[in-house]
Each structure stands twice: as structure tokens, then as C-alpha cells.
């Protein structure tokens, strides 16, 4: 996770003589520097205590925005999560207690509207 965050951000204001010929991107992994979290209008929230760590959300996330460590889900990479909600759709676990964040019954992961006040740092 931390390694990815160090990827160099592309310079977005290069003059035409300095852009890469043919548009070749020769810095692998540099897409990490492209912040897509601002696209999100709905924010996924996880109840860590009731999560079974089945890792299905990690498999299904199309943006690799669910980091894991030691085989366990750490949370969300909100800098890149676009709020598509696939993790919510795919989460198989019906919780037994109300969700720690939303207070609602339902899945371990639940979507709430972005208020605009949240910070986009990783939820850890």
C-alpha cells in the first residue's frame, strides 16, 4: 500500500517537446498517482468486527482499492475508490448486529452518501 502511494505523479503540464513520443507510459504503476477518489458520490463503509475476511470484496474490486495485509482486509483506499458499490453487492455476509457505522442491519459493507467532509485517507 505505502509502496504504491510513492509512485511518482506524472507531470500534467509538460510542454509538447517533452511529452513521451507516441504517448508511451514507461513508468509502470504510475496510474496510482492518478487520484480517482474524487469521483465518488457514495462511500463504502465496513464493519470490521463483523467481517469474516472472506476477501470476496478484495477479489471483486475493479480498482484494487481494497488493500489487504497479512491476508486480511485493511479497509478502503479512498484515494482511488470510485464508489461503484460492487463490494457491497458482492459481500455475502448478513450481519447479526447493527452496522457499527450506519446502525443499519444488512451487509458488512454498506454505502452512505458522501458528505464532502470526509477525509480521503485510507480507512485503516
Amino acid at each position, binding site marked *: 500500500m505505502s509502496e504504491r502511494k510513492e509512485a511518482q505523479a506524472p507531470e500534467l503540464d509538460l510542454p509538447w517537446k517533452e511529452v*513521451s513520443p507516441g504517448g508511451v507510459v514507461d513508468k509502470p504503476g504510475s496510474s496510482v498517482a492518478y487520484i480517482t477518489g474524487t469521483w465518488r458520490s457514495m462511500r463504502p463503509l465496513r464493519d470490521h468486527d463483523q467481517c469474516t475476511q472472506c476477501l470476496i470484496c478484495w477479489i471483486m474490486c475493479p480498482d484494487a482499492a481494497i488493500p489487504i495485509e497479512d491476508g486480511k482486509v485493511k479497509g478502503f483506499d479512498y484515494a482511488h475508490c470510485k464508489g461503484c458499490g460492487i463490494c457491497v453487492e458482492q459481500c455475502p455476509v448478513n450481519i447479526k448486529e447493527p452496522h457499527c457505522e450506519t446502525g443499519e442491519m444488512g451487509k458488512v459493507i454498506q454505502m452512505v452518501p458522501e458528505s464532502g467532509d470526509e477525509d480521503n485517507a485510507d480507512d485503516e
Partner: protein
Amino acid sequence: MTSNRSRTFVLGEKKEMVESTYLALDGANAVSHAMRQINPDVVAAYPITPQTAVVQNFSQFVADGTVDTEFVPVESEHAAMSACIGASAAGARVMTATSANGLALMWEMLYIASGMRLPIVLTVVNRALSSPLNIHCDHSDSMGARDAGWLQLYAETGQEAYDNTIQALRIAEDSDLLLPVMSCQDGFITGHGVERVGILPDQTVQDFVGQYVANYSLLDVENPVTMGAWDFTDYYFEHKRQQSQAMNESMPIVEAVSAEYEKLSGRPQPIIDTFAMDDAEVAVIVLSSAAGTTRSVVRDLRNKGVKAGVVKPRLFRPFPAQRIVDAIKNCKAVAVLDRAISFGSPDGMGPLFLDVTSALYNAGACDVPVIDFIFGLGGRDMTPPMVESVYDQLMQIRDTGDRGDIVRYVGLRG
């Protein structure tokens, strides 16, 4: 990036002229021999008349094991160029061939090849575009692709088609250029016309083209890259400006490769071929095989005391504007012969005329009267009497000072 480019070529040691062996070859077969000697890594192609002979002969070389080329028999020209792009992005030396509607079907991919700066060489055997259906020569196919970001060479003879094909590869792969090149010749007229063609020794060609080392390869897992990526409003413009600059700066590369090849083969390789232009009052500018017919008429006219000349651009993209202006600026009347129409341009002018006249205007040489002749569409013969009629009309303009109709037709009924 310019800074981390590797030198692309290992140049051959031999700089002295090497004797050619002379074979009886049609222009298409001459090109397939050039391809055999180049021995590209990948050829992906689809057959279409009159290009068929190029690929048919070459596929025989593949079948016989004469070359190491991976030959990809694809399902269309769109697929052919797509496969060439993929192979070139993987770092391979890539060639293909097509004609007419096949070139039209490649359209989308032509721009992708040039935009990705992939040094693919496409040999075009020029043929009229449908409709009406016609298999014979004109330049509507490659002229339609003149803005696609490919360099374009036009050959007068099978010999030139052979020579241009070999040079095209070196030009395309130059590490300071990296743009695709079209090497064109006239369908049937030279494509299926058998002539004496000088072939360099295989090793000489191999030494000349050298080893191609791509700057990037999609198959290089140690140095992963992304090619053909999304380029938004923030970058597309800069990339296109840079691509245009590469084309603008390609002339010295074409000159250097031509000079080296000229020395090697002993055959002149001018950017524009001028004949009897020093004191010419009336001149014709024409591409490809019709230039030879025109030159033979000029020899006769000169014997009769007419100060006639002819200019044949071997290179059309990038357009050698200054050279053409210098060649014709002192003429009293000039005709451009176009084997294609740019439909909807003023009076239906041809593409060569549009570029010649814009070159004159931009050079401030606006007092040379230039007219355009559309000729030879769909393989209509361009005979010496037709060329003579062009010079007759030029002499009339010279004598009267009246430019008259700007766009004219030669060999057209009615």
C-alpha cells in the same frame, strides 16, 4: 523520451558501391525480393489486386524457409495493420503491403500506427478506389492517406520500388524519427510490368538495414510500459504537435538514408528528381511511372528546342516544398499532373497541386502560373501524345500570359 533513446542501428561497414545483380522482375516481385532481403520479423497481410504478387511471392519465401519471418495471414486489411501494430509495439521489425480498398480498410489503424510512433513499412501498389469498381492504377488510395502521419515515397519504376522499400525501412526505424513509411508504386504499370531490376547482395541489404532495437517492447516484462493509452484533453494536443514535428524534421533523415543508399547502390536517390530544369520555361511536376513517360517527351521537346523540364518528387510526405519551389520558381508556366482528385477542393484540384501551390504561396513565389491536370484515373493510359498536349498548353500560357482554366483533364473523353 528523447533522453533515454538507444541508438537504433548497427551500421554496415561497407560504404563503397556494391554491384547489383540484374533480374527480370515485375515491380511487385522486386518489392518481395526487398522484403526477403530485409527478412522482417513479422509480416501480416491480406491479398488484394494488384498487391497480391508482393505477398504471394513473399509467402513463398516464408514457406521455403528463405526468411525467418512470422507470416500472419489475417482476415482483412484492418486486421493486417492491427497485427502489424501489435507486433511493432512488441519490438518487432514489421512490414506489410496493400492496395486501394485494402488501404482504405486500414484507415483507422494507419493513424494508430503513426500516433504510436511505430516504424512499420507498408508497400502500396497504387490502385483506384471503388466505386465504380476498378483494379487499375491511380493514386486515390495513398493520396487519401496523405494526412495519416505516414511518410510517403513514390516509385517511377520497379527498380525504384525495390530501392525505396529498403530505404523506407531505415528511414522508419531511425531512432530520431520512428514513424511509419508507405512505399508506393503504380499498380500494373510497374507492379505487373517486368523490367530489368538490379538487386543488391542479400548481405549488403542486411548490413544496410542493420539490427532494429526498439526503444520499448510490450514483451519486455522487466521494463513494463503502456502503449496506446488514454490521452485526454490535457495531453493529446501535445502528442500530436510532437508527432507533427517528427514529420517536419524527417527530411534530413530521408536525405541521409538516401545518400547512403545512393553510395551503396550507385543509383541516384534524389528527394526530387529534376530533369532539364536549369533553364526550363515550361515544366511538369508528376509522381511515379508517368514521370518517366514525361521525361521521354521532354527529351524530344528539348531536341526541338523547347525549354521543357520535369520534376518528379520521390518523396511526397513530408512534402519537399522548398525544393519544388526552387526548381520551378523561374519557370514561365508549370503543370502539376495529379492521378487523384481531392473532391470538393476548389474546382476539384488534385492533392499534389494543392501542395505545390501552397508551397509557392508560402514562399512568396506567387507569379508562377501553375495549372493542374487530372490524368490516368482508373488506369487510363498516359501516353506521350497526352504529355505533349500538356506541354502545348503550357507553351500557350507562356506565350499569352493567360493562365486560363486552372484544373484541366488529360486523356478524358469529351
